[in-house]
C-alpha cells in the first residue's frame, strides 16, 4: 500500500497525463479524471492509499465549495442584464422542459423514488457548451440561429445548476423517508425550503462580511488566503447547520460578485490554486465507483436518453414561442442542445456525494454511460440543426 503523499503525487501527475490524452481524442478532462480514478482505484491497479480513499468525503465537500463559489460569479445583475429576450426564454424553457419530462418519466414510468427522479431530472438540462461552440466553428455557421444557440448554451447551465442545487437540497431531506411519498411530502418540502433559504442567507451574510473587509487586503497572497478562508468557513458552517454547501457557497460567490463595483480578482486568483483540488475530486469519484455497475446502461439510462432530448426540444420550442422567435429557431434550437458532457458528470458527482450510497452510485453510473451516448450523438445533431436552419455554408 502506497503512502498518502505518494498516492496524491501519482493521482495528480497521472490525472494530468490522462486529461491530455483524452483531449487529443476530443473528450473532456472530467471524463479522463474519472477513468483515471477507476483504473487507479482499488478494483484495478490499487494505487490509491486507503487513507486517501477514506478522505473522499472531505475532498468532495472542499472541491464542491470551490466549484460553487466560482459558479456564483455568473449570477450578477450585470451579466443577467446582457442576456437577450429570446435566449432568456428559450434557456429557461429548455431547462424546465428537460427537468419536468425526465423527472416524471423516471418517477412515474419506472417507479423510482421521487428523490432519485428529481435529481436525475435536474441533471438532464445540462449541455456541453464547448462541444456546441466547436461545431459552430468547424462548420463556420453564421446567423441569428447560431447566435441564439450559443447564447442559450452559455446560460442554460447556470439555470440548470441552480435548479440542481434546489433539487438536491429537497432530495436529501426526502431521501431519509421511505414509504408513501405524499404523506411526508409537505413536511419534507418545508424542510427542503428551510435548507435552501438558510443556505442562501448564510452565503449572503458571509458575502457581505467578505466585501466589507476586502478593502484591507494589500497583496495577492492576502487575497488568496482570504478567499480560501471564506470558502471553507462558509462550507464548514453549512455542514455544521445541516445546510447546503453548494447553495451557500454559490450565494457567497454571487454576493461578492454583485457587491463589487469593479472586476473582482477574488475569482481570478483561485484559478491558480483550485485545479488540483478538482482533479483530486474527480479522480477519487472514479476510484470510489463500483465498476460492476458501469457495464450496463440499465432501464433508467434508456429512459433518460429517450426523454431528455424531447424534453429539451419541447421546452425550447415553448420558450421560443413565448419570445416570438423566428420559425426555424422554434423548430430546430432544441436539437442543437443535445450534447452533454462534463457539467452533467460534475452534477452527478455532487449527487453521489450527498445522497444515500445506492441512489448516488446508480445516478452517477447512469449519467456516465448516458453522457458517452450524448457525447457521440450530440455533435451530429447540432450539425443537423445548423443545416436545417440554413446557417452552414450559406455565406461562403
Amino acid at each position, binding site marked *: 500500500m502506497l503512502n498518502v503523499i505518494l498516492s496524491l503525487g501519482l493521482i495528480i501527475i497521472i490525472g494530468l497525463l490522462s486529461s491530455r490524452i483524452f*483531449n487529443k481524442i476530443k473528450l*473532456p*478532462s*472530467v471524463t479522463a479524471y474519472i477513468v483515471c480514478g477507476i483504473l487507479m482505484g482499488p478494483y484495478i491497479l490499487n494505487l490509491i492509499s486507503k487513507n486517501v480513499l477514506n478522505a473522499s468525503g472531505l475532498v468532495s465537500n472542499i472541491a464542491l465549495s470551490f*466549484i460553487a463559489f*466560482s*459558479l456564483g*460569479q*455568473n449570477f450578477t445583475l*450585470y*451579466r443577467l442584464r446582457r442576456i437577450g429576450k429570446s435566449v432568456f426564454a428559450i434557456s429557461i424553457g429548455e431547462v424546465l422542459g428537460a427537468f419536468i419530462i425526465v423527472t416524471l418519466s423516471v418517477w412515474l414510468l419506472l417507479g423510482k423514488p421521487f428523490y432519485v427522479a428529481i435529481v436525475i431530472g435536474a441533471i438532464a438540462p445540462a449541455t*456541453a*457548451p*464547448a462541444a456546441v*461552440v*466547436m461545431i459552430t*466553428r468547424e462548420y*463556420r455557421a453564421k446567423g441569428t440561429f447560431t*447566435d441564439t444557440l*450559443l*447564447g442559450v*448554451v*452559455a*446560460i442554460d*447551465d*447556470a439555470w440548470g445548476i441552480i435548479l440542481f442545487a434546489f433539487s438536491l437540497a429537497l432530495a436529501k431531506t426526502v431521501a431519509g423517508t421511505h414509504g408513501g411519498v405524499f404523506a411526508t411530502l409537505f413536511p419534507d418540502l418545508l424542510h427542503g425550503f428551510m435548507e435552501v433559504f438558510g443556505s442562501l442567507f448564510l452565503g449572503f451574510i458571509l458575502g457581505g462580511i467578505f466585501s466589507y473587509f476586502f478593502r484591507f*487586503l*494589500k*497583496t*495577492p497572497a*492576502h*487575497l488568496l488566503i482570504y478567499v480560501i478562508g471564506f470558502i471553507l468557513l462558509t462550507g464548514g458552517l453549512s455542514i455544521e447547520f445541516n445546510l447546503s454547501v453548494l447553495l451557500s457557497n454559490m450565494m457567497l460567490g454571487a454576493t461578492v460578485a454583485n457587491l463589487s*463595483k*469593479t*472586476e473582482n*480578482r477574488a*475569482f*481570478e486568483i483561485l*484559478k491558480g490554486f*483550485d*485545479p488540483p483540488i*478538482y*482533479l483530486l475530486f474527480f479522480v477519487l469519484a472514479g476510484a470510489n465507483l463500483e465498476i460492476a455497475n458501469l457495464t450496463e446502461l440499465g432501464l433508467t439510462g434508456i429512459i433518460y436518453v429517450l426523454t431528455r432530448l424531447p424534453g429539451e426540444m419541447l421546452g425550447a420550442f415553448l420558450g421560443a414561442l413565448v419570445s416570438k422567435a423566428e420559425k426555424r429557431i422554434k423548430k430546430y434550437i432544441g436539437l442543437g442542445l443535445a450534447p452533454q*458532457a*462534463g*457539467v452533467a458528470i*460534475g452534477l452527478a458527482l455532487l449527487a453521489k456525494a450527498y445522497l444515500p450510497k445506492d441512489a448516488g452510485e446508480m445516478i452517477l453510473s447512469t449519467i456516465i454511460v448516458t453522457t458517452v451516448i450524448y457525447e457521440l450523438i450530440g455533435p451530429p445533431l447540432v450539425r443537423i440543426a445548423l443545416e436545417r436552419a440554413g446557417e452552414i455554408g450559406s455565406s461562403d
Partner: protein
Amino acid sequence: MGKVKDVMKRDVITVTRSTNLRELLQKFKDFHTFPLVPVVEEKKLVGVVKLENICKVFQPKEPEILKTLHFIDERPVNIFEVDTPPEMGYLVLVEDIMDTRFITVEEEDNLNDALSKMRLNNLIQVPVIDKNKNLVGIIGVFDIIKNLFMERGII
C-alpha cells in the same frame, strides 16, 4: 508622499465605443506592447481595452459559463486556426470587446495606495479619474518607480 495627480501621465491615447478593431490596432501597432487603452465618452471613462480583450476576437461568443467552469471543459483556442476574415477589422468595435468593470484610481489618491491597488489586482497600469468619473490621466507602476528615483536623485 506624492499624489497620483503629481505623477500620472495626462496625455492619454483614448478610443471610443465605436472605434473599430482596425483603427484600434493601427494606433498601437508600433508600440512595444499593447497598453491599457481607456474608452471614453465625452470625457467620461466607460471602459478599458487590454491585450486580453483583443484576444477575445479569436473566440467570439465564448460561453460565459466556461470562464468559471475552467476545469470542466478546458479547450484552449489555437489562434492560428481561427478564421478571421478581413472585414472583421471594420465589424468588430471597441464596444464589443471592452471591459466595462475595471479598476481605477482617483487623482487625489496617494501613490502608496495606488501602488498597492495595482499590486493586489496584478496590474501595471490603471486609468486615473476625477470626482466626476472623468478620465484625467493614466498611471503605471513604472511612473511611480521613476518618480521615486527622481526624488532620490538617481535619475
